[in-house]
């Protein structure tokens, strides 16, 4: 049931990039200015050298000293220029990723609950990485190449406007071949990256599933999968290599031909007395120098393109529309009630008109076979989704009309998925609301916590909590959130049955005094509840106290008899 998140349009990416660049005009001007000055100082050397060639023996020491001076100035300016652009790049990059995470943290609850994390995780890691690479390397290089290239052409023009011709001659060749290449390169590289990711994912899977591979004797299968992934990666790499094998020769010719032409025509002009030797020498050196920024510019363009594609995926996250409009109504009580609720996934109704009234403080257990719609009903009762038809209300107000901040302190959904965040145990608890250490300890005590203390670092990279402890942590968070109604969706099902029993004791303390809707597959949970609802094929087929249902001899009674085996 994973859904893809949207991707921003080309226009949105462009306007965002523009705003990002222009957000720091002073820094940008400084970086550009320094790169410009560095480029200009770099152009003095060929010019001075031309003087030296023109009249060997005149002012040798002075000119050599001059070249040395400009080399030093150029080096110093280059250092400052690189530093200024890197500082700007880091600043922009930090803003970008921080804004992105804020957008992620603002994603609608229904999207978060429904969409798989794969797509979002890939954007958070791979796309942020790709974009960092583009901003750190490609962007400044393109900037420098543009500035340097421009000034070199100007210097060439000042030396001899006539000798601009050979350079201009190859511009169409370079332009057309690069355009041809760029039109294909983006998809080629995306395919390359996707194939590479597929291959490393396959490797990770083999490694993490090494025991399973042995148990099921899937060794050959895993080798074949790896080789198939490599074959696809190779095909993708070959394709982009083919593109470059066509594009590169045109670039190389584009660099060589102007040098030869400048030498030849410059020489001929000199022979005919139109130019001085200094001009010819300087011009040839300029044209030769020009290949460097040109090459930098052209080869970094595809990298920039990839950065653009990543940016589009990052910006797409902010395009998810909000799933609730708080109406401002305040609930008049704490009773939850569902009236003729229908809900559909992909246009197929999974709930066909469910009605249910819960008294405050009541415990309801929902049982039934998989796929009957139990979890869907649970999510509607927790206000995650709005029903397609009918209504789920809290004190007469539809749940999805409440602001999220209100809702989470009224109704909470607890699932079998629990997450331990990287950080101290304190961080893991205090995320609910700022609390004193005493409050935090009290919450831990309520769930009979036997794990590490508040200052212990837990989560990935820290102390690993057992599944039972992770679940206890989730329950302690609930104690702090203090909602009057809880929806438990098989909250203890992934835990070793023995541990589950201890956990259920601590759960009991948490549930005290709250309305509880427990979707459970362990029958003793149902036995302990005030009422039991059996959900079958999207409908409530049996509803009543445990004793009533057992007396009714329906499907619940049959199960109970086996379970209890008396």
């Amino acid at each position, binding site marked *: 049931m994973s859904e893809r998140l949207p991707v921003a349009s080309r226009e949105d990416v462009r306007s965002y990039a523009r705003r990002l660049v222009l957000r720091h005009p002073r820094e940008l001007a400084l970086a550009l200015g320094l790169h410009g000055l560095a480029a200009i100082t770099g152009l003095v050397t060929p010019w001075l050298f031309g003087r030296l060639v023109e009249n060997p023996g005149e002012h040798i020491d002075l000119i050599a000293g001059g070249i040395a001076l400009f080399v030093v100035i150029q080096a110093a300016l280059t250092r400052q*220029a690189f530093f200024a652009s890197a500082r700007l790049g880091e600043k922009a990059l930090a803003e970008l990723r921080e804004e992105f995470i804020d957008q992620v943290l603002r994603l609608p609850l229904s999207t978060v609950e429904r969409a798989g994390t794969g797509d979002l995780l890939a954007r958070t890691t791979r796309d942020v990485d790709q974009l960092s690479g583009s901003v750190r390397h490609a962007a400044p290089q393109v900037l420098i190449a543009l500035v340097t290239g421009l000034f070199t052409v100007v210097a060439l023009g000042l030396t001899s406007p006539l000798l601009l011709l050979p350079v201009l001659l190859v511009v169409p060749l370079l332009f057309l071949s690069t355009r041809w290449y760029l039109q294909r390169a983006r998809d080629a590289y995306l395919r390359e990256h996707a194939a590479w990711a597929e291959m490393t994912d396959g490797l990770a899977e083999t490694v993490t599933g090494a025991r399973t591979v042995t148990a099921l004797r899937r060794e050959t299968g895993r080798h074949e999968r790896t080789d198939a992934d490599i074959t696809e990666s190779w095909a993708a790499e070959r394709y982009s290599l083919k593109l470059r094998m066509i594009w590169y020769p045109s670039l190389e010719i584009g660099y060589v031909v102007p040098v030869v032409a400048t030498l030849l025509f410059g020489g001929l002009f000199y022979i005919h007395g139109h130019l001085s030797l200094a001009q010819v020498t300087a011009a040839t050196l300029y044209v030769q120098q020009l290949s460097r920024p040109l090459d930098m510019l052209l080869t970094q363009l595809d990298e920039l393109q990839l950065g653009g594609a990543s940016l589009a995926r990052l910006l797409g996250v902010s395009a998810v529309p909000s799933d609730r409009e708080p109406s401002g109504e305040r609930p008049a009580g704490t009773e939850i009630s569902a009236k003729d609720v229908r809900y559909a996934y992909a246009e197929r109704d999974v709930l066909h008109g469910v009605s249910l009234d819960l008294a405050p403080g009541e415990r309801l257990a929902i049982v039934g076979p998989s796929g009957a719609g139990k979890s869907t009903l649970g999510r509607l009762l927790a206000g995650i989704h709005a029903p397609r038809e009918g209504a789920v209300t809290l004190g007469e107000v539809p749940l999805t009309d409440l602001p999220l901040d209100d809702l989470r302190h009224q109704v909470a959904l607890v699932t079998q998925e629990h997450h331990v965040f990287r950080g101290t145990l304190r961080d893991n608890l205090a995320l609910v*609301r700022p609390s004193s250490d005493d409050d935090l300890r009290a919450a831990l005590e309520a769930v009979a916590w036997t794990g590490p203390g508040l200052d212990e670092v837990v989560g990935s990279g820290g102390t690993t909590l057992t599944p039972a402890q992770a679940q206890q942590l989730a329950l302690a968070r609930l104690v702090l959130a203090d909602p009057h109604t809880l929806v438990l969706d098989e909250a203890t099902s992934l835990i070793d*049955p023995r541990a589950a029993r201890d956990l259920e004791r601590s759960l009991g303390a948490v549930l005290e005094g709250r309305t509880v809707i427990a979707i459970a597959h362990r029958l003793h949970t149902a036995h302990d509840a005030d009422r039991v609802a059996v959900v079958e094929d999207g409908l409530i087929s049996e509803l009543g106290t445990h004793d009533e249902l057992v007396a009714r001899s329906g499907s619940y009674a049959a199960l109970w008899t086996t379970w209890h085996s008396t």
Partner: protein
Amino acid sequence: MRSLPVSDPGTPDNRGPWRYLGWIARCQLHAIIPGTLLGVAWMGSQALMPYVLGQAIDHGIKAKDATSLTEWSLVLLGLGLLQALSGVFRHRFAVFNWLAAAYRTIQVIVRQATRLGPTLPKRLTTGEVVSVGIADVSRIGDAMDITARGAGSVVSIIVVTVILLGSMWQMGLVVLIGIPLILALTAPIMRPLHRRQTRQRELTGDLTTRAADIVGGLRVLRGIGGEQLFSRRFKDESQSVRAAGVRTASVESVLDGIGLLLPGLLLVVVTWMGAHYAAAGEITVGQLVAFYGYAAFLVDPLWTIAEAADRITKAHVASKRIVRILQLDPEHPDLGTREPEGTRLTDSRLTDSVTGLTVRGGGLTAVVAGTAAPELADRLGGYADGGSYGGIPLAELKELRRRILVSINEDRLFTGTVRGELAAPDDDLAREAVWAACAEDVVDAVGLDGPVAEGGREFSGGQQQRLRLARALAAEPDVMILVEPTSAVDAHTEARIADRLGKHRGGRTTVLFTGSPLMLDRADHVIFVENGAVAAEGEHADLVKSCPAYRAAVVRE
């Protein structure tokens, strides 16, 4: 160009990091040699360009000889085309070399991982191995890729030095001293740079982990709160990554400056000396231009050599990590040679010497062992010492893994199609296994050709568990050991699985570790293990009555 991947990566030389690199290089010598030759041609033709330029100026321009100028211009063009051609093909071989090395290393690591099996997570963290597969593989590729450019750089520096020594030995000497001097002067800055780069990479890695942590726990954050706290936390870390980036850049930019300064000063010295020689008439103007050209050209091969040294150092470190993985041996390899005693499958008993547990051949035996179940199952399946089958210790049993299958909840679902995951001989058998595991709803929803996402994460916990059970059943082992196969399944479905499991196994030995009365009630025989020993045996209904400890363990009131 040969096609990749090779069907058999061969046996890697795992005796040490250099040996491994040498082995990789030998395996692809057929591409490294031409790559290197092309690299030499490519760099060499660039090194000769200033010479031709000088000749064109002397014989063509200075001598005002248009024919000679044209001739030398054509030579320059030819050289340029040679450079272009060899450069393009060098690139082709370099890419091949990079990929061939990376692919072969991945193949070798995957093959080693499957050979190690359950030993792997015991000796190494999976993260370690995965990061080798992602990062270190690239380092090996980098080292093979640089061979072509590196060789070209060395040769071109030699060419330039020889030319200089030949035409004006003093200038040759300057270059000969200048090049190592520049490399030596740059070296001290590399250390702090690498340190800062490492720090920056670590912080960036931490930040990525933090971001992934936020995404992984987004349900919690959106469901219960804490967005602002985590946003602030992320911003703090993001800002320290930024600060580390700026710190790296402050050194890196010095390197950029020095990269211009030192070769630039060498250029000044060469030019200054050349100008004096030219003024004294010892060299021509063309030669002066050529000297300038050589000095300007040397920058590229110079940095390439520095880069090659860096890449080879990193490849060595990467190779060390790879070799560490390759040196491991599996603890319980499936290499036994003895057949079990008895002619029929149901003759063979499965025993555990630690608890004294004996599973009779044939039928469904349920074991109630609480938290001791995983270890006990491991011994019965030959993942730890202590088990025997048909009188043969499992380590000596022929085709151990074909005969005995242990299925646990930590078993991983692999990406691919449902059919591929079940791996039954035909679709009918696949559907039978799916039926027995009550996983029809899973298969009906996506079809046998439907996809299984990474770790089966598109399916709910209960669906994953039933799919795993179906996959294990489809393997049709002689002995099947299942550990809590229905812990995430609802009571309705669990009851149905209990009915179907025995039918599907058709009398073959099945051992079921469970605490669920619904399952225990359907077992032919129940063994209760407590405090490391068999405490009671019999039928579920009898044990409930006769054994209070058993009753307490399985029935909840």
